[in-house]
C-alpha cells in the first residue's frame, strides 16, 4: 500500500510527465489556451493512459517476453496504443454519447502521444507489477492533468496582459512552462523510487 502511494506521488509531483520528463509537450502547448479544453484533454489522457498501461503491460508480459521479442516493444506499443484509442473512441460513441461528447474530440489527439508511449515503456523499465502499472499509469495521467490545468490557468491570464510583441502567444507560453518546470524542481527528492 505504501509503495503504491509513493508511486502515485512520484508520478504526479516528483517526476511529473510534462514538467520533469518533458513528455507530451505537444498537447501541453497546443490545447492549453482555455481551461475548459485543458480539462477535457486531461480527462481523455487519464482514460487512455490507464488503459494503455494495462494493455501494453499485458501484451509485453504474455506475448513479447514468451516469444523473445522484447526488442520490438516500441513498435508494438505504438500499434497497440493507436488501435486501442480508436477502439475506445468507437465504443464510447455508441455506449456513452455524453462521455464521447466530452472526450471525443481529444481522443484522436492522443493516439500517438509520446506521454502515453512513455508511460508504457517506463512500466517495463521499472519492472512494475500489474497493480503498480495501473497505478503508475493513472498517476502519470493525473500529473499531466495537473500540469495542464495549472498552465492553462496561467495562459488565460497571460493572454489578458500586455506582453511585449516578440513574446506574444507561444513564446511567452514556453517561458512560462519553463518557470513552472523550475517550480516543480522543488519536489525533487521528496520520495525515492
Amino acid at each position, binding site marked *: 500500500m505504501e509503495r503504491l502511494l509513493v508511486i502515485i506521488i512520484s508520478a504526479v509531483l516528483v517526476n511529473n510527465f510534462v514538467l520533469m520528463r518533458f513528455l507530451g509537450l505537444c498537447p501541453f502547448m497546443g490545447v492549453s489556451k482555455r481551461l475548459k479544453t485543458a480539462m477535457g484533454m486531461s480527462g481523455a489522457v487519464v482514460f487512455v493512459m490507464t488503459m494503455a498501461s494495462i494493455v501494453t503491460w499485458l501484451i509485453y508480459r504474455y506475448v513479447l517476453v514468451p516469444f523473445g521479442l522484447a526488442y520490438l516493444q516500441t513498435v508494438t506499443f505504438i500499434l497497440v496504443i493507436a488501435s486501442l484509442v480508436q477502439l475506445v473512441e468507437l465504443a464510447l*460513441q*455508441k455506449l456513452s454519447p455524453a462521455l464521447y461528447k466530452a472526450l471525443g474530440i481529444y481522443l484522436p489527439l492522443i493516439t500517438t502521444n509520446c506521454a502515453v508511449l512513455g508511460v508504457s515503456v517506463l512500466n517495463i523499465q521499472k519492472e512494475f507489477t500489474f497493480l503498480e502499472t495501473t497505478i503508475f499509469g493513472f498517476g502519470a495521467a493525473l500529473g499531466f492533468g495537473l500540469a495542464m490545468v495549472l498552465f492553462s490557468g496561467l495562459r488565460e491570464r497571460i493572454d489578458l496582459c*500586455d506582453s511585449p510583441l516578440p513574446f506574444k502567444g507561444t513564446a511567452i507560453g514556453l517561458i512560462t512552462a519553463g518557470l513552472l518546470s523550475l517550480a516543480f524542481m522543488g519536489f525533487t527528492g521528496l520520495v525515492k523510487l
Partner: protein
Amino acid sequence: MITAVIALASLALLAGLGLALAARVFAVEVDPRVEAIEEALPGVNCGACGLPGCAELAKRIAEGKAEVDACPVGGDGVAHSIAEIIGRVFEGGGAKNVALVLCGGDDSVAVRRFYYNGIYDCNSAVLLFGGDKACSYGCLGLETCAGVCPFGAIDMLPGGLAVVDPEKCTGCTKCVAACPKGIIKMVPYEKKVHILCSSHDKGGRVRKICKVGCIACQRCVKEAPEGSITMDENLAVIDYAKDVPEEVAGVCPMNTIVTQVLGREKRTGEAAPVAAGGEA
C-alpha cells in the same frame, strides 16, 4: 526474424480485425440528411443561431426542432437548399440585416477626457468611469467587437472607431451583444441613410465634446417624411421600416446623418464647423 515478422503482422491483423468488428458492432446510425444539411450550411461555426456550431444546427433542423431559415448568416440561399434537402417548401425570406456602429466620433472629432492605459478591451475600459470617451455613448475603439466578429467584417479606423463592412457582415449579431456601450444595431442592408449617434445628452453638452453628435435640433425630423425620423430623448432615431430620402442628410448641421456609399460611410458635407467650447 521470422518470429518477429509473424508476431507483429498477426498483432496488426488482430488489431485491424478488432477495429473492423468494433466499427460494425458500435456503428451509430446517423441521419443522412444531417450531413447534407451541414454541407449546405456556411460551416463557420459562428454560433449566431444560438447553437454550438453548424453540426448542431443541422441536427436540429433534421429533427424538425429548428426552422430551415434558422441560420441568420446563410440567408435565403441556404434556407432554400436546406428546404430542398428535407423536402419542405421555404417561402418568403426577409431582407438581409447588417450591423452598424451608431457612433461617428473618432479621435479627430470627439474628445477623450483621460488617458486610458489599461487592458486593451472595451469591457475593461467601461469599468473605469464608463470609459475614456467624454461622450458616455461613444465608441471606445478598443476592438472588442472586431475581436468577436467571425467574419473579419469590423475594421478599426485609425482614430479609434469601429466600422462594420456591410459587404462582409452576415448579420450574426455577435458584435451587437459584445459591445458594452450597446451602440451597435442591426439595420437593413439596403437602407442608405443613417444617423451615426447614440447620445441622449443635451445639445449643449454634445457640442462641447463631439463635432458629429446629434444635438437634437430636430431639423431632420421636419425635413423627413412624417414619422420616419423621431426624437427619443435628445436623439434623432430613424425608423428603418420607412424610407428616408438622401437629401435629409444635407440638413444636419452636425453632419451626424450619413449616406452609405460603396460599403463605407461618407459624410455628406465638408468638415463641420469647430464646436463651441473646444476641449471639455
